[in-house]
């Protein structure tokens, strides 16, 4: 899976979780850029991404990921 493909798939997950078809995420996207992405919604997002890519984030990663770019790094690392 290429980085671009991961971003494309992430767009779909974000659109579904936040119920907003206009969302497009990039390397530097953070919770500040998406209105409903708060601490409560964060874990729903993580679980949805785990299901989409059939992988697991560790708890340490869940609490320390700084942006979507880091999220993609982990997804690609797990895919190898």
């Amino acid at each position, binding site marked *: 899976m290429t980085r671009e493909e991961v971003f494309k798939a992430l767009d779909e997950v974000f659109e579904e979780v936040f119920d907003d078809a206009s969302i497009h995420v990039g390397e530097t996207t953070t919770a500040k850029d998406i209105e409903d992405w708060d601490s409560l919604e964060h874990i*729903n997002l993580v679980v949805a991404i785990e299901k989409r890519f059939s992988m697991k984030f560790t708890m340490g990663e869940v609490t320390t990921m700084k942006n979507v770019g880091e999220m993609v790094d982990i997804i690609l690392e797990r895919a190898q």
Partner: protein
Amino acid sequence: MSLTSLNFLVFLIVTGICYYILPKRTQPYCLLVASIAFYCMVGEPWTFIYLFVSIVSVYAGTRLMEWIRKNKPQKQKKLCRIVFVTVLLCNLGILAVLKYTNFMIYNLAYLVKLLHLDISVHTVSWAASLGISYYTLQIVSYLTDVYWEVQRPQHNFFRVALFACFFPQMVSGPISRYSELGVQLEQEHRFSLEQVERGACRILWGFFKKLVISEKLAVIVNAIYADPVGYHGLYIWTAMLLFPIQIYTDFSGCMDIVLGAAECFGIFLPENFRTPFFSRTIQEFWQRWHITLGLWLKDYVMYPILKSNHFVAMGDKLKKKYGRKIGKQIPLYIAMLVLWFCNGIWHGNSWKYIIGVGLWYWFAIIMGQIFEPVSKRMINILHIPTESVVWHIFQSVRTYIVYGIGALFFCATDLRNGAFLIKCGFLEFNPQIFTDGSFLQMGLDGYDLVMLGIMIVFAFVISVLGRNGYVRDKIAAKNPLFGGFIWIMLLVIVLVFGSYGNGYNASSFIYAKF
């Protein structure tokens, strides 16, 4: 030795002199010796054993996990989990036994009495370690971070010990993470007059909040809550509205002293407050009030629950049966319930904390979320400009009142007394108390009340100015003479209007009881 005492200032200065005179590599050891001395002066020296056991267990646990990962890679997951759970239970067990034994005894006795069985209740009087609720969370966060592999274990035992008991934050927090504080404690720090000045200014600001505002407000609030029958009706609601300001100036003032003292050593602790009274919702309020506790509970309680297989499976089942929204909300509300229960019981071993400082806010947040669509529709129908200042003020006042109702239980002796205080608030509508001089009979004269009002307004204005960066930096950017004048004026205000000195014992900080 209170943080607002002269003894503390002398202790801070002596430690500061030693810290900067001694060779740089000995700085952490200087702070560790000072922290142990501080513990012995403030707490029961023999209770240090509990802290010592916690430090040793966490140090040994983290080193053992490191050894397992290196030498037993195939079994590392299982073995590390055993080590982690053992050390975690050891630390939480010490906290539970020392702080909550009587609470458990009372509740068990109550349950037994419901069965009409006669039993005699024996309570225990075990002294807990100083700051046990703070250092336990802090050290558990380090243990968990090592288990989660986001933190490398520290090999030097004394540095782990210093992280657990760094004296400025020992009594009242903030609850730091090893990645923030531990790393700074390992570094060498050069003396900087500018930095010490900044730290001293922050300490002075903390003194102002505590001695000039909080202590004066406490006179009124304590008088009313001590005699709710005599001071009923609007007295109760006045106290309810004043107490959030009292506890804010008390706790945030304490944090200013703690952060200022740490800054004098070149160490920056995390902020615990971000102008909470400007919050629009109670959820936002708790993201800006006691921030380090909220983040700890979110990262180490709520997220692990929500990400557990059971909760994910429950969410999936609910989604299939009741739809996406319910499937998302129910697990979230249950996890939040656990979080707010923990928040309540962390504040004290009483149902008044569990209900007042925990479940009440959970209920308010849940109601806010459930009724959000209705609220949005009403806003649209009424064409309310949600970005207007007036609407923001309305939302902030509403949040303030919701917080105030829960905080009322802080002052109550127990849950029943808290309910009684609220009941007394409805006994009579007595607006005449604001004009007939009733408030002058509580220990503050007219001059005191006027000055108190002015000081609260002054602190509010500084809070507004400080919303976009530190006021200290703004003052420092001006002419040095102007800066010096401002700080000397603040010192004069503390000396003239503060509650301190011989024959006066400043009550301890409210958040120092934990």
